[in-house]
């Protein structure tokens, strides 16, 4: 594996006195795809939000490419450019066209020229099959299309790390595939990704490593085949069982 | 304190006179609010009617009263109607009439808005439960309407209290006028009275309106 992109050391996070993440450590190498699974409320999304400093942390440290994220709030915009984040609810900017949604950050933050940003935006849109929707507004798109645009909007910043927070959870079932295909494609390109998902089949297909999170800590981690076929801990077994139906009628 | 002119307030009955002036203003607003509340509910009920003539008339009334500054309305009543109709109107009566007309229009619009904000399916689900028209209005529609309406009505009341400060301009002796008189009478002995007295008037108006605004905000938060 390549150089280290993300290192989390002894992360402690609480909400109003209630511990959400406890002494959590984790490293991610360049090109690695880690998928976080676990029951609802186990702190998966909170972990992603801490990595992007959308949540303050109460202990430990997070390093991105060697730089500590929570050290200096003034350096945050700089660091966040290196982290792309895609939300469950897409969060496109409704008052801007698809093209403007994508080019806003490269132009404002990275001061790239309009022509340059738009050219790259169109190339990226092409790759996710949405080049013809560039002039449309978010409300004219389906959920799956919006989510693909949101992914492009992050990609154009050339992030070193991509965070995906249950990006298919709000989608109608028939649209889940089109979004997951984009993610699989990104994995193939060797992107470094941290993915939170409930889609176990997809997790198995895309992940280099599965992290099973429960009660604010990593309970088990391993290669997808090992984790899904031979979970070591009892909690992981119980969790995986909720996804399979035992025969109903004996 | 000497330099700021507050001491003039404690001379003789000055402060009591000032409070008397405030009461004149408050009395005008209270009477106008009372009339507006009752007439406004009727007005609002009228405005929800489907009849196009009623709709047009109520709309015309609302827009006319609304687009004109209240000062203009006061002038029309005080200088205009006395001239045109030859009646005698004290400044105070003219003020009550104008504020009641204006308040009724605003109140009517609030009532209309609140009534129309209740979604259709609330009526339908009330009917589906077997409530008759009167019952569904009393137990389902009215409570929801009131919750929406009350904070807005309270806000309207503070607006009306603030607006009564205008009656000075048509010669009603209210707080501001009393303040002027006090400052004038002490011009030699307390040259800085204007600062202290006008600041006091400002604070007194604030004290009259602020608690009411807070109440509206609290209700809004609780019921939203």
């Amino acid at each position, binding site marked *: 594996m390549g150089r280290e992109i993300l290192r989390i050391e002894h992360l402690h996070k609480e909400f109003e006195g209630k511990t959400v993440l406890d002494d959590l450590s984790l490293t991610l190498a360049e090109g690695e795809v880690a998928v976080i699974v676990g029951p609802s409320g186990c702190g998966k999304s909170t972990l992603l939000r801490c990595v*992007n400093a*959308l949540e303050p942390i109460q202990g430990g440290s997070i390093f991105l490419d060697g730089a500590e994220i929570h050290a200096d709030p003034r350096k945050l*915009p*700089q660091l*966040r*450019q290196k*982290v*792309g*984040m895609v*939300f469950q609810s897409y*969060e496109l*900017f*409704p*008052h801007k066209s698809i093209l403007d949604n994508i080019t*806003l*950050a490269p132009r*404002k*933050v*990275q001061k790239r020229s309009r022509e340059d940003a738009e050219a790259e935006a169109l190339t990226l849109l092409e790759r996710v099959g949405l080049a013809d929707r560039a002039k449309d507004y978010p*409300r004219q798109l389906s959920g799956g299309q919006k989510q693909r645009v949101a992914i492009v*909007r*992050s990609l154009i*910043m050339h992030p070193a790390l991509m965070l995906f927070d249950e990006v298919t959870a709000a989608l109608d079932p028939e649209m889940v595939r089109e979004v997951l295909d984009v993610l699989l494609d990104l994995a193939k390109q060797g992107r470094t990704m941290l993915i939170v998902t409930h889609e176990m089949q997809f997790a198995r297909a895309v992940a280099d490593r599965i992290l099973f999170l429960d009660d604010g800590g990593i309970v088990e981690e391993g290669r997808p085949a090992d984790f899904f076929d031979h979970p070591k801990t009892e909690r992981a077994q119980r969790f995986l069982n909720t996804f399979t139906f035992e025969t109903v009628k004996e | 304190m000497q330099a*700021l*002119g507050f001491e003039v307030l404690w001379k003789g009955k000055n402060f009591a006179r000032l409070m008397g002036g405030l009461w004149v203003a408050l009395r005008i607003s209270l009477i106008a609010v009372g009339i507006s509340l009752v007439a406004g509910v009727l007005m609002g009920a009228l405005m929800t009617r489907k009849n196009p003539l009623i709709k047009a008339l109520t709309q015309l009334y609302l827009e006319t009263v609304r*687009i*004109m*500054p*209240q*000062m*203009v309305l006061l*002038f*029309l009543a005080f*200088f*205009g109607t006395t*001239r045109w109709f030859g009646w005698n109107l004290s400044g105070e009566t003219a003020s009550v009439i104008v504020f009641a007309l204006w308040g009724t229009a605003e109140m009517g619009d609030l009532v209309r808005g609140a009534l129309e904000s209740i979604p259709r399916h609330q009526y339908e689900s009330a009917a589906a439960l077997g409530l008759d028209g009167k019952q569904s209005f009393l137990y389902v529609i009215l409570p929801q309407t009131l919750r929406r309406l009350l904070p807005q009505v309270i806000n309207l009341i*503070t607006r009306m209290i*603030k*607006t009564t*400060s*205008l009656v*000075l*301009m048509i010669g009603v002796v209210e707080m*501001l006028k009393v*303040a002027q008189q006090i*400052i004038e009478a002490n011009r030699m002995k307390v*040259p*800085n009275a*204007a*600062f202290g*007295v*006008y*600041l006091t*008037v*400002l604070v007194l*108006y*604030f004290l009259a*309106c*602020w608690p009411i*605004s807070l109440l509206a905000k609290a209700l809004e938060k609780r019921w939203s």
Partner: protein
Amino acid sequence: MNADVLRSYLPLYKEAAMLTIRLGLLGIALAFLIGLVCAAVLYCKIPVLRTVVRAYIELSRNTPLLIQLFFLYYGLPKLGIRTTPEACGVSGLAFLGGGYMAEAFRSGMEAIAPIQLESALSLGMTRTQALSSVILPQALTVSFPALMANVIFLMKETSVFSAVSLMDLMFTAKDLIGLYYNTTESLFLLVVFYLLILLPISLVGSLIERRLRYAGAGL
């Protein structure tokens, strides 16, 4: 009604109306800026400043403009702060309007889900960038009706300017009634000129509002 009287009064009213419009627009523009800054302070929850802003909003919204003007014009000079009637009218209107505009902007900004701000931040934008290019444009659409209502309200409030001896429409009407007793003509022109000022604002406002709603810009 006497046509000659109307004609002879017309120039006076025109001049007064120009004064009303000029001072009104200036005061409203300032109120807009004050409101914007105050709303940003509240939205970003800047400590200390937000308390000051809250107090200012309560004070400006719960006192009548007429009294504010009396204090500014007759009270403040006693502390050595002298102003012209015009500056006094404009700053009074800006003080009053700033509080109302701040509330309108604030409620618009709060209507935008916080995760929109977060998604802008995660693209590497600074708070200022996120506020100005993501939150504010959306908030403006939401706040537009309230902002427009404030513009009309403030324009109407200018009618108390005569109290600080500004020769606006009210002043002119009262003066003429007192001097020549042509009450009907004086009041007629008063109403007509206020309509000329206020109706266009109101019409343009509802036109834009309808277009915004049609375009669904934002929502």
